[in-house]
């Protein structure tokens, strides 16, 4: 009975406080079509996209004439530690890793919506982000998606993927794949509801906690993908074979030499998260790094997601610059935008975001010019139809010291 009252109250509130926005004369890139629609309008009701078409003739609480400027969906960082790190070198400001748990470490409660990195990256063009755990072990834990609204309820999707690296710990990568296989076998055999476990818990010889094994089970049940950091072509091939034998979903992070095995990645329908700006052969596993990687993978039919640099979370929004560089080396512009938005939400099943689609949340950005240009700025940023503040700590520092003679 109580539930019904609450339901009625919520419905009534929504009805009474309908709020509408109308963006006029925009160049709209929706993410669902390759085209940019010139002179289009976007109608937003109660924070959701209600219509995208020409000459929308409806009354609205607020009409915003953007005079031909580009509107895109807000961008989504596919891989960073936003909300988990304040200053990289100060462990006391970090919540991104655990030595107690491995696969079962969920960063969902580590996220701090008041982090100074959040308004800063929001104003760089990210409206949401997948924050990932870090660590030097085989499994680092579970990542979650968050809105960058700064609100206390920023969590969008909890524990959406399990993160691992076979390049970790100075161990042979082959040994790490074997260890992964053994751990998967253990997790399969493990039933938390069984009488033995209920009565005695896990045997001491098992290096994982029940929480860790439960996380791995979600991967084995294909509920969530496994995201593995790998770069060398031969390692990518071995990983593809391994996930086929395990029948699980894989996303590859890094893939510096991905272009060498683009065909196999495309055939196996494995999405890759790229850092296009990082084209240096920083290790022997990345000797084939090159700026054409994104374009070559896309051409072969691989779904690509664009990130900046894992260890430069502070500037996660510079994924835009990486995307621009990928375009100058052959990636189509619309694919670069999708790699920053729709491909991220599609790969990790983040609902109602990533493209301008009727019914989606109105997470959108009015750009002063091409969003991939290094000289462009996000002029207005909306999350669920709400205009975000342009203020950041950095901007306040600037204004304290700026003298305009």
């Amino acid at each position: 009975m109580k539930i019904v009252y609450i339901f009625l109250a919520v419905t009534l509130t929504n009805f009474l406080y309908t709020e509408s926005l109308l963006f006029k004369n925009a160049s709209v890139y929706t993410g669902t079509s390759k085209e940019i629609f010139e002179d289009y309008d976007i109608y937003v009701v109660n924070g959701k996209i209600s219509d995208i078409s020409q000459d929308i003739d409806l009354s609205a609480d607020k009409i915003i004439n953007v005079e031909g400027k580009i509107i895109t969906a807000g961008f989504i960082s596919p891989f960073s530690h936003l909300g988990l790190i304040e200053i990289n070198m100060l462990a006391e400001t970090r919540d991104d890793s655990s030595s107690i748990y491995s696969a079962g470490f969920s960063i969902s409660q580590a996220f701090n919506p008041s982090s100074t990195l959040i308004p800063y990256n929001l104003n760089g063009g990210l409206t949401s982000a997948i924050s990932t755990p870090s660590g030097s072990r085989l499994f680092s834990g579970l990542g979650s998606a968050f809105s960058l609204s700064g609100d206390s309820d920023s969590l969008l999707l909890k524990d959406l993927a399990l993160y691992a690296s076979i390049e970790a710990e100075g161990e042979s990568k082959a040994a790490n794949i074997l260890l992964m296989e053994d751990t998967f076998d253990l997790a399969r055999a493990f039933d938390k509801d069984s009488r033995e476990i209920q009565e005695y818990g896990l045997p001491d010889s098992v290096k994982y906690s029940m929480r860790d094994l439960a996380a791995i089970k979600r991967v084995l049940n294909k509920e969530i993908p496994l995201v593995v950091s790998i770069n060398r072509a031969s390692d990518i091939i071995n990983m593809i074979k391994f996930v086929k034998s395990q029948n699980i979903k894989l996303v590859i992070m890094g893939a510096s030499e991905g272009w060498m095995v683009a065909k196999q990645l495309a055939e196996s329908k494995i999405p890759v998260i790229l850092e296009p700006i990082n084209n240096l052969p920083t290790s022997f596993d990345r000797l084939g790094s090159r700026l054409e990687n994104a374009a070559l993978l896309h051409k072969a039919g691989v779904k690509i997601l664009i990130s900046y640099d894992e260890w430069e979370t502070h500037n996660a929004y510079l994924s835009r610059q990486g995307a621009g560089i990928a375009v100058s080396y052959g990636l189509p512009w619309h694919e670069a935008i999708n790699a920053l938005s729709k491909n991220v939400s599609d790969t990790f099943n983040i609902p109602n975001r990533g493209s301008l689609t009727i019914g989606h949340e109105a997470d959108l950005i009015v750009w002063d010019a091409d969003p991939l240009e290094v000289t462009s700025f996000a002029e207005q940023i909306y999350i669920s139809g709400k205009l975000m503040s342009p203020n950041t700590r950095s901007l306040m520092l600037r204004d304290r010291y700026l003298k305009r003679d």
Partner: protein
Amino acid sequence: MRNLIIISFLTFLISCSSEVFDNQEREDERDDIYLSTYKPSSSGDVLVKGGRILTGTGEEFLSADILIKNNVIEEVAELIEPSSNTKIINAEGKWVTPGIIDIHSHMGVYAAPSLRSNSDGNEATSPVTPHVWAEHSVWTQDTQMPLALRGGITTFHVLPGSANLFGGRGVTLKNVWSKTVQGMKFPKAPYTLKMACGENPKRVYGSNQEPSTRMGNVAGYRAAWIKAKEYKDNKNAKRDLKLDTLKGVLDGEILIQNHCYRGEEMAVMIDISKEFDYKITTFHHAIEAYKVADLLAENGICAAMWADWWGFKHEAFDMVWENVAIVDQAKGGSGCAIVHSDSGVGIQRLNQEAAKAMAAGIRAGFEIPRKRAIQWITKNPAKALGIDDRVGTLEKGKMADLVIWDSDPFSVYAKTEIVLIDGLIKYDHSDPDSPKPTDFELGIISPNENRL
């Protein structure tokens, strides 16, 4: 190991003392060895025709020609008639800038691939190592160098790292393939001395050795300069490699390149330079330069900055996008702003970093045209390296180091088409064998395939 470090430090302190070791006059550093052997072959006459030119002098030509004679710029003018044996490079519809100069690089000393065996940038065994020279660590076959060339870098300055208060001598190199470092050395470029403020020295040492605090850092600089003064004044003192370098600074021959993030530390370093009567040329990684921009302009000190890197440590927390522009515009536009990379990634696109800083400045209300912003990566770093008489601008008499871009270099989409060093084509986008791969890259992908 720790004991060894302490012993070597004590030995250093003893050797720095003003005791007269013998009566013979000290044989000072010789200036006729360790010289550059770089000598370009003759370019003949080359005419770069019809480009949109940002000269680096503060001028812009919408369409003009550049005549090169024997490796040197002869003339920049709107229309130059070629003679019969002039090689013509068509730059119509393209943009032309001076060769890009990165004042802060570790190419060669922190190479790619990054391996324990070639990590040669920090002599982190004592906080005072002015006797080590970066040029003695440089691996000339670093894969970062041809990538930087493709990004338009024609000159770069290699510094030791920032673990030490005095990190050692830096070296200015031309971005040309060579099997020896002498073959890359910028002819007669002044030596530099790397100093470091702040978190790094006190973090690297400090457990049971000075410095462990910022005040320990400052005491360390002053103690060393006291020894250097004595050494300079006492011709009878035994020759000391460390003091040779410090004396070179006091004599005005070696330029100080000072890693320093915080505004208050820059002000303290200026005081120290006044106490010992030397000049600081540039503060590097100057994240807080905007807080002391007037002080820097008054003292004629350049600031080398990133467009937007921040947050990796506490002293890099107060970054503003407008830092470069505020330094540039200080005291009626008399500031010396430089955009630097300190990164094998950033050095490939210093033009984009300058573009971001320019856009932020314009957005903050400054008038900063491209012809001014280009100076942050050309003329100003040349000045701070003491080589602005030969590079950094496109004008008569300068080395013919220049870049032809396919479009506006302040765009993410711009790529270099041709890079000339001393009038010779070192990168040509239409040549699949260009840039020349390093030795390391030959056959490294497969026996028949070089790294790209």
